[in-house]
């Protein structure tokens, strides 16, 4: 029977004889990832109540990213508890202040094609970039996984989204996702979005990451891209291992998709999502030049090395508008290191950017760079819900790092293409 990639992974992980969309399976988890906010501080009391231990400490990755660096005694206590729990539970895969969990997981080669991974964070679909089936869960669910090594899942239908052709200059994966949020809406529950087509084949792993990451904004269970040679090379370069048959993890040619959509990448313009929803998006040319107070380049989805390169391509030799503050929080320590080595950080800071610590930062309103009442920000992050980045009467526009950088220079929401032509 022909199967989708999601069905194949859940068939293996559940050990069932057959699975198809709609079935509920109990599956064995290959890896569980949690961070300082939803992780130890929340699961430890549950495990204690159950008198239970972690089922397999070698299958657990812990990352500190939400409350780093500590800004008050409360966040410092959360980080301290996280470090002590990791030590007491013999968790060897602990990345303390090394970057945002989803980015770190791939930088350290923890993920492989065909794995079933649960993450204690809603942007866990990011793991689909390497062909893992990764879903987000809350803390109680995570406690259940830590005790049993298992999770129940409903096998999702697949929406196949193909992007053919070549993205234009200064158009990025972020633009694809803001466009898809508008096209598909935010309520695609019980579905996995599988990305394919020649534009995806030619994408960097960082851009594939953005597609899968923002599948969360589509309300999907997860997003996934079938692995190719680039995937395997990237995992090996990160120190991960790859099974000899890793390329088998793809949907069968005659697999049944709930929907199959095809888009022309060359026709896509830079997109901007207006407050207060990623689905409230349109081409940048359709938005009046909204005056901004802040431009923010940060988060797992918007501040990887490739994102900083995009911003630098616009900002090189230019200056941030006098009334705008451009804040950049690199997505990982590795990103900062590489961007320092290749001169990107110099370009950004010479243009007037302020560098912030690595971490989730202002994206979810936890860290530095939050907004005051009536302030307007354009941001390379994934969500612009009301009040998410600060005051409930602040406004956030979402866009690619190209568009955020161009807007920082102009002082208003601006089309980046004029800077690169």
């Amino acid at each position, binding site marked *: 029977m022909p199967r989708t990639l999601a069905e194949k992974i859940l068939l293996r992980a559940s050990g069932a004889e057959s699975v198809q969309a709609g079935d509920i399976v109990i599956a064995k988890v290959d890896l569980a990832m949690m961070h300082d*906010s*939803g992780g130890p501080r929340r699961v430890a009391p549950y495990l204690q109540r159950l008198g*239970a231990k972690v089922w397999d400490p070698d299958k657990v990755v812990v990352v500190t990213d939400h409350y780093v660096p500590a800004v008050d005694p*409360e966040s410092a206590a959360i980080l301290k508890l996280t470090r002590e729990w990791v030590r007491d539970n013999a968790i060897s895969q602990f990345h303390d202040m090394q970057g945002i969990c989803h980015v770190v997981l791939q930088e350290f080669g923890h993920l492989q094609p065909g794995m079933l991974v649960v993450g204690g964070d809603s942007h866990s679909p990011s793991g689909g970039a390497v062909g893992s089936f990764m879903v987000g869960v*809350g803390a*109680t669910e995570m406690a259940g996984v830590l005790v049993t090594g298992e999770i129940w899942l409903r096998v999702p239908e697949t929406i196949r989204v193909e992007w053919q052709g070549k993205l234009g200059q200064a158009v990025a994966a972020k633009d694809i996702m803001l466009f898809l949020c508008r096209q598909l809406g*935010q309520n695609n*529950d019980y579905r996995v979005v599988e990305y394919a087509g020649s534009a995806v084949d030619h994408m960097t792993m960082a851009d594939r990451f953005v597609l899968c990451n923002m599948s969360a904004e589509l309300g999907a269970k997860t997003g996934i891209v079938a692995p190719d040679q680039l995937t395997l090379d990237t995992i090996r370069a990160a120190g991960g291992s790859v099974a000899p048959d890793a390329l088998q993890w793809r949907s069968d040619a005659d697999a049944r998709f709930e929907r199959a959509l095809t888009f022309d990448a060359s026709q896509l313009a830079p997109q901007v999502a207006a407050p207060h929803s990623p689905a409230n998006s349109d081409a940048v040319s359709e938005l009046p030049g909204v005056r901004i107070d802040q431009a923010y380049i940060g988060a797992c989805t918007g501040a990887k090395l490739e994102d900083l390169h995009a911003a630098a391509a616009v900002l090189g030799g230019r200056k941030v508008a006098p009334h705008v503050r451009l804040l950049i929080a690199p997505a990982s320590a590795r990103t900062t290191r590489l961007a320092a080595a290749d001169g990107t950080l110099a370009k950004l800071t010479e243009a007037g950017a302020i560098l912030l610590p690595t971490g989730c930062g202002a994206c979810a309103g936890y860290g530095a760079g*939050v907004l005051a009442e009536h302030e307007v920000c354009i941001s390379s992050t994934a969500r612009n819900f009301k009040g998410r980045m600060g005051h*409930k009467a602040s406004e956030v526009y979402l866009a690619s790092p190209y568009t955020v950088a161009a807007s920082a220079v102009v002082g208003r929401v601006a089309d980046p293409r004029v800077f690169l032509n």
Partner: protein
Amino acid sequence: MDVLRGRAWVFGDNIDTDLLAPGHAMRKPLEELAKHTLEAIAPQFASNVKRGDFLVAGDGFGIGSSREQAAQALLHLGVAAVLAKSPARIFYRNALNLGLPVLRFADAREVRDGDDLELDLARSVVVNHSRGTTYPVEPIPPFLMDMVRDGGLIPHLHRRLDGTK
């Protein structure tokens, strides 16, 4: 817990987790955080909601973050159940895992703020006493309902682990 009766608090589509559990309050204890639940769109909610009230909403209730404080704060404030046209997946799982019933409720838009509702979990219906109408709701799957009846995943696992000892 099979028959619950309370007042409806009605909200629209895509009520997100940042509205339910604002980021600025996430490092605070639950009782402090819960005071900020829905403050950006309904400042009177947290102080006026009564034990046993229902939250009725449209599509995408609980979209966004995996933070289970979004569901936990509602429980803390006394919300008896969430009746949503379509709940977001992580919120749905979180709520059931914490013992808060969430039901898919196609007729959510028929209910007005303040309506007197009765949820019958065994019969999978909502009776609207204010309007003299009865609506069907999609039942929670039995294996999850067992967990909800136990009070959530942790007490449920506790029973299961005790049973194996």
